């Protein structure tokens, strides 16, 4: 595992190896912080703080979990501290969302081959509640398992699943609305 080698070098005094960790995890760390804080400058500051915290805690990391899970938890908690609004991430149960409709699926499929797909999806994610966009990012973009998301966010596994299901529903609803708006703008 690359991280193991880099961490050994860092703990031996080779601080330059830390730049390898930064290069590998910077983007996802920033994405997580941005999903929570929804502000570029605050997200970058949270990421900086998270990397410093990670550097200080490296001697205590024993590879009991994946390094990414451990670090993203630090990023998550650092961003939440910066946000100071725990209510969006409260552990609560809610009535489940309904399944996706055909229209929503069609709208989503229609943008798969578009060049501006990433911009559209980023725009959709920005319209979602912070906790839902974060969980969708962790599950579908970083491909974290439900258990890893549970470790990162301290939510229960069932809560993660409910939020993912609900978030996905909102994602497709919002995407469909954006597509309809685009069509009506063109007309």
């Amino acid at each position, binding site marked *: 595992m690359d991280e193991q080698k880099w961490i050994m070098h860092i703990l031996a005094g080779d601080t330059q190896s830390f730049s390898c960790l930064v290069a590998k995890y910077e983007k996802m760390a*920033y994405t997580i912080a941005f999903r929570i804080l929804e502000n*570029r400058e605050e*997200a*970058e500051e949270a990421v900086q703080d998270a990397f*410093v915290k990670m550097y*200080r805690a490296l001697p205590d990391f024993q590879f009991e979990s994946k390094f990414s899970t451990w670090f993203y938890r630090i990023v998550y908690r650092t961003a939440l501290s910066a946000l100071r609004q725990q209510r969006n991430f409260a552990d609560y149960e809610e009535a489940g969302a309904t399944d996706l409709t055909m229209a929503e699926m069609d709208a989503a499929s229609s943008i798969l081959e578009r060049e501006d797909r*990433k911009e559209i999806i980023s725009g959709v994610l920005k319209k979602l509640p912070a906790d839902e966009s974060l969980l969708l990012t962790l599950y579908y973009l970083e491909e974290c398992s439900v258990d890893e998301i549970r470790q990162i966010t301290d939510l229960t596994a069932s809560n993660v699943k409910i939020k993912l299901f609900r978030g996905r529903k909102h994602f497709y609803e919002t995407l469909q609305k954006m597509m309809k708006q685009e069509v009506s703008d063109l007309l």
Partner: protein
Amino acid sequence: MNTSEEHIDKLTKKLMNGTFEQPSPSLNTRIMALIMGEKRSLIRKCYIKRMPSLSMVIGCFVVYMMLIAGVASLFMKQSETMSNLLEGLKNIFPMLLTIGTCVSLFFFFTQLDNWLNTKESMKTNVGKKIG
């Protein structure tokens, strides 16, 4: 259209593929600058040793002198009256002073040598790590 869970998951993954948010290009540099600062302060904490203070050196000198005088007086087969003791000590005072000074200076320069060596290795290590 197949709306199975697996299909929806696949579609969602494809849609979200590559949608990382982009930080500013300078973020990496800023993070490394912070880490180097952390590293420097850690090295400083580990390596800085205080030189013995002047009062400590003088105190050691006095203690050595008294110790040597005490040991010397134990071996002197003189009468125990104060005047005889003082007379005896006055005779060997130059020797006591010389021995005490040599021992104190030895202690002082050993500490100075250690301090200069650790400062030098601190400079070398910081230079290697930051370089």
